[in-house]
């Protein structure tokens, strides 16, 4: 198949959703141009033009056509470049992987946001929901090196932010949920995942991630004060 060099990715280095796309493209050996967006001015004119509905990263442009929403983009990448497949082959396994992807981006992500942004009782509720989520994910990784089996796959890519970004969400959000004794298999997965060369080489600097998260907290505090 002819190698396409007309793939552009709009994103930020610190964004967990952008990183998913970077990983998928790199795992499939697809060349792309990274058009870095600035977190502080999130809606550049180009971004608004290419993603008028949500005005958010990541946005992929392939053959002049743009797509947004990381889960949608990942399915597109898999279908357009079948080399080194990331999704399970069996339809039931695929449905299961999609279910857990929605869980991570839905219930678990919302719980993490609640724990991060709230205080007092609401914060405690958020942490409890995060722990429930970690417990469920522990159940999914038991007996496996990666969610995808022997090699990383779709669900590892989706869960990837838990391996690195999550600790900074906890630090800046001032809560603690991850516990290597309570979730030993998830803890082992984290170590396996960040040691995969493509993953390791793409991780943003801790200070940059923390700075972004502090920015979110400050913005929320400002909004609450007004």
């Amino acid at each position, binding site marked *: 198949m002819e190698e396409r060099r007309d793939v552009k990715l709009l994103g930020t280095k610190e964004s967990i959703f952008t990183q998913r796309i970077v990983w998928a493209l790199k795992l499939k050996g697809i060349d792309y141009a990274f058009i870095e967006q600035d977190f502080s001015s999130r809606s550049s004119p180009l971004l608004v033009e290419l993603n008028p*509905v949500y005005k958010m990263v990541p946005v992929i442009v*392939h053959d002049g*056509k743009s*797509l*947004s*929403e990381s*889960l*949608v*983009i990942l*399915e*597109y990448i898999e*279908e*357009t470049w079948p080399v080194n497949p990331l999704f399970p082959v069996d*339809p*039931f396994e*695929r*449905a*299961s992987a*999609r*279910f857990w992807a*929605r*869980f991570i981006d839905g*219930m678990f992500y919302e719980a993490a946001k609640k724990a991060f942004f709230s205080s007092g009782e609401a914060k405690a509720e958020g942490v409890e929901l995060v722990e429930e989520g970690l417990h*469920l994910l522990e159940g999914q990784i038991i007996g496996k090196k990666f969610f995808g089996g022997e090699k990383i796959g779709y669900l590892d890519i989706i869960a990837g932010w838990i391996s690195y970004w999550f600790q900074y969400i906890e630090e800046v959000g001032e809560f603690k949920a991850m516990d290597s004794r309570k979730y030993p298999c998830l803890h082992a997965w984290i170590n396996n995942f960040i040691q995969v060369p493509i993953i390791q080489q793409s991780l943003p600097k801790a200070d940059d991630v923390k700075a972004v998260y502090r920015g979110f907290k400050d913005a929320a505090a400002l909004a609450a004060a007004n």
Partner: protein
Amino acid sequence: MAEDEVILLGFWASVFGIRPRIALEEKEVKYEYREELLVGNNKSPLLLQMNPIHKKIPVLIHNGKPICESLIEVEYIDEMWKDKALLLPSDPYERAQARFWADYIDKKLYDPAKKIHITKDDELEAAEKDLIEVLKMLEGVLGDKTYFGGDNFGYLDIALIGFYGWFPTYQTYFNFSIEAECPKIVGWGNRCMQRDSVAKTLPDQRKILELPKLIRQRLGIE
């Protein structure tokens, strides 16, 4: 080869529950439909067993294995029964567009729509504005096509059609005319109703009209 056992747990008025049902009908797959009694919150042991995390319908149970989340079920049905009525477009970019807009419907349409169940009258205005905005966006996506899938009824049509059954109810509670605001969507809904899969499964709009009052009574809002 042993015959497939397909069970679908649903709720008659659910905009999500109808999606896998229409998909199965389009594919002419034999299935057993089981109604969950959701208004009294009497969820069946099978539902709680098969969807322990969310405890929600629809749940598709294929040869004993559960698949949850309505859009995931539609994709699964499309992949399992490939020989008939393909629901997702074959072009990857068009597939991505269909998935994007189905996800948009789930993110943006359901929340304002469900406000008729739980919101007091004076808060309905904001929800009404959101609902119209979303429907107009979808009207733009439909354009002058026969279906969202173009000439072929498919995934995105299935994603939205459940809401069509609620249009008269939205109009009653929100006090606006969907026909006036989004005539193409209404035309599309009428066309979909000509299909057996939709005519057979879409609930009676008059029965739906009674639901919000029932739910609001149970919640103590009226």
